């Protein structure tokens, strides 16, 4: 749980962040074109965890708390929060903010937005502990919880499916039915499906003066560029060509080989981000022989994870065992490391014999929509064949693969990149393997206990222990296999100044030369 002192420190640290070039709001202008592969399934920020939506909506909407540059929760629309010693009452003081329709933000808007999130939010579970929301005055919101929930601030500050604050009038509407009105530095202009979204600078944006510079999704957001067009360009080659010709200024991601080829182009700047996500292999414990931990350990011992990472990421990877990113609060050190990337075929064969494997067919599920999912499955399949496994690879499109993995039958192993979850901390990662519908389809008592301790312990040390125990269990029982950390490259034209790569291409703070 974040204490008042921790939150104060976070805000204080943000206040002394290096400024870089002075932010220019007056007299600035120009238009930036950013290109991304996919189009957003919706611009209703609360209801989706799709990256394609997040890239856009986080310029339009803001949250009470947001994540700083290091991924820690810091105040955004809130001035701060007072948390009662029993961890049951959260008192948020609100800063001045104005919606794009001209209305000032009040506690009524915040209350209605939080309540809507509990109904339609993609991560609505974060509102489950909430018993009541009070609004003693226009600038104060008091959230009372049924039981202590130390992950509450982490939840409402997560960009995964942002708990966006919207006008009270919109909050009664169903998912995907709202007008796109937020408090962010850019306001929505138009959405042309299959083509683009257009945003424009919100002239009456109220900057967060507690900060001196931008800081993750929070901080002082200064919109220098007048207009932003986010184009949807499905073909990677066409996106790269658009960047080279200057039709596009920023690419959400550029293919690694293209980035290497263009590294010396003086008109372009490549921004490498490591880590961006985990590459994982999820295992279905509901299917035989995957229900046998000895069999799963055989897989764990057989795989050459470095080869998988090298092939699936075009070389932009890092071998790391942790189920949290190093340097973050909950990184569990060397726990589980001896069982990571063992790559010992003899040991694997011995474990296979011990498991009593009788040549059952192992279905390895991947999708062609994400190239590294497919490459991971194909490479892993070849490695497992080499120790004598009867493997069948099934490559479908993304919705089919995803739909299949929600079933208890029809798959044994499934490739998935986990990006936003490890970024947002342990709650999403541990939650993926626990609760009513864990990804492995069979609840593991130890992991359930880890999740309970993580979600209820008021002391940070206890929560850290829970995450450490989770990681130990992941390796000991081979619940799933983490292959390694994946990086990405964002790309900009050289005329885009002060660009800092982050989870989304941020347009505030940048200028166009």
């Amino acid at each position: 749980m974040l204490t008042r002192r921790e939150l104060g420190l976070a805000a204080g640290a943000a206040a002394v962040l290096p400024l870089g070039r002075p932010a220019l709001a007056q007299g600035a202008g120009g238009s930036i074109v950013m290109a991304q592969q996919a189009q957003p399934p919706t611009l209703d920020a609360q209801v989706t965890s799709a990256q394609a939506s997040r890239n856009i909506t986080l310029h339009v909407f803001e949250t009470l708390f947001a994540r700083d540059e290091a991924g820690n929760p810091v105040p955004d629309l809130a001035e701060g929060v007072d948390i009662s010693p029993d961890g049951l009452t959260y008192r948020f003081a609100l800063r001045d903010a104005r919606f794009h329709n001209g209305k000032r933000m009040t506690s009524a808007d915040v209350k209605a937005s939080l309540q809507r999130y509990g109904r339609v939010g993609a991560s609505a579970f974060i509102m489950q502990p909430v018993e009541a929301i009070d609004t003693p005055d226009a600038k104060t919101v008091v959230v009372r919880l049924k039981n202590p929930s130390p992950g509450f601030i982490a939840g409402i500050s997560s960009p995964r499916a942002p708990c966006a604050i919207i006008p009270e009038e919109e909050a009664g509407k169903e998912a995907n039915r709202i007008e796109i009105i937020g408090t962010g530095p850019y306001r929505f202009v138009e959405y042309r499906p299959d083509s683009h979204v257009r945003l424009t600078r919100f002239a009456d944006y109220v900057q967060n003066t507690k900060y001196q510079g931008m800081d993750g999704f929070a901080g002082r957001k200064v919109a220098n560029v007048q207009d932003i067009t986010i184009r949807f360009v499905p073909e990677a080659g066409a996106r790269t060509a658009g960047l080279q010709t200057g039709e596009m200024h920023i690419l959400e991601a550029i293919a690694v080989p293209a980035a290497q080829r263009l590294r010396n182009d003086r008109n372009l700047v490549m921004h490498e981000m490591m880590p961006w996500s985990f590459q994982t292999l999820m295992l279905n414990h509901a299917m035989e022989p995957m229900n046998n931990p000895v069999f799963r350990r055989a897989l764990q011992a057989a795989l050459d994870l470095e080869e998988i990472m090298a092939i699936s990421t075009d070389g932009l990877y890092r071998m790391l065992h942790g189920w949290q990113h190093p340097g973050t609060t909950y990184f569990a050190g060397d726990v589980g490391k001896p069982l990571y990337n063992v790559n010992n075929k003899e040991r694997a064969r011995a474990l296979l014999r011990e498991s009593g494997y009788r040549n059952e067919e192992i279905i390895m599920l991947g999708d062609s929509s994400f190239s590294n999912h497919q490459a991971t499955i194909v490479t892993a399949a070849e490695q497992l064949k080499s120790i004598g496994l009867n493997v069948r690879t099934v490559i479908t499109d993304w919705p089919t693969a995803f739909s299949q993995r929600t079933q208890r039958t029809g798959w044994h192993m499934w490739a998935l990149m986990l990006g936003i979850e490890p970024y947002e901390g342990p709650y999403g990662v541990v939650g993926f393997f626990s609760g009513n519908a864990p990804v492995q389809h069979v609840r593991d008592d130890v992991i359930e206990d880890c999740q309970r301790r993580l979600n209820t312990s008021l002391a940070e040390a206890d929560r850290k222990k829970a995450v450490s125990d989770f990681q130990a269990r992941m390796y000991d029982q081979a619940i799933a296999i983490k292959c390694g950390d994946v990086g990405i490259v964002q790309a900009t034209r050289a005329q885009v100044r002060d660009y800092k790569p982050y989870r989304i291409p941020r347009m505030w703070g940048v200028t166009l030369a």
Partner: protein
Amino acid sequence: MLRYAAGRLVSALPVLLIVSLLSFGIVWIVPGDVAVEMAGPTATAEELARLRERLGLTKPWHEQLIGWYGALLQGDLGESILLRQGVGAAIVERLPVTLSLTFTALLIAFVCGTALGVLAAVRAGKAADRAAMGTALIGFSLPDFWLGLVFVYLFAVVLGWLPTGGYVPFTQDPLGWAQAMILPAGTLALSQMGLFARMTRAAMLEVLRQDYVRTARAKGMPGWIVVGKHALRNALIPVVTVAGIACGVLLGGAVVIESVFSLPGVGRLIVGAIQRRDYPVIQGGLLLTATIFVLVNLAVDLLYAALDPRIRHGRR
């Protein structure tokens, strides 16, 4: 002629009924749904279940089928789940893009392909014939998406003459429209150009051997009039038939080209809907595409009849 056209229209109705049934059935058979797309790649099973309930995806299939046909009889193709827009409106909005692309490509393919075919036939067995047919074969063999990317690199990145993609409406900026259309339409046209060239060459060789052509030459008529007026008109009859087939192929090819050149057309709408399982758009889009295909074939048949009097008078 009107009776003929009306008869063809009536015979198209069962085709469209079958298409509508198939498109509805396919949507129900294919795994996955729009909730997967909306919730995002790492959504949990619980999150998905809740979203499915809210989107009305849990209704039984027969209820949805009745709803689909009920609305269809009133001319309503339904509403896209993701676009917050009527399917009909979404298609109509994108139709100019796809029709621009398809018909510009058809025009380029027809004109250039026919010219190449005539040249090859007139110079049969000579270097010009081999060059023309070689060009046609290359155009016919190269994959659209690869050729598109090569053209983008050459004409946009290296030479800087044309944009890499995007669409400009003709009504807004005719020159911008032309610039945006050249590369995608040219790419799309190349494959069908080869088909037209080969068909025209074969038909021309056949016609050039006919007595009336020999007679025209014997009368001292200039060669270009013999070829252009007498031979080509007759040689075009089978070529026009091919145009109908080519139009269908180009409509299909437009799906790939629209993605390569980021054109917001009907093809990309339908492919996007399939990838994201936006059922109403898939159903409405397939039905509309089938309707266009049927109408184009009808138009070709009518044109065929106009070119060949034996057909319109029922003497085949």
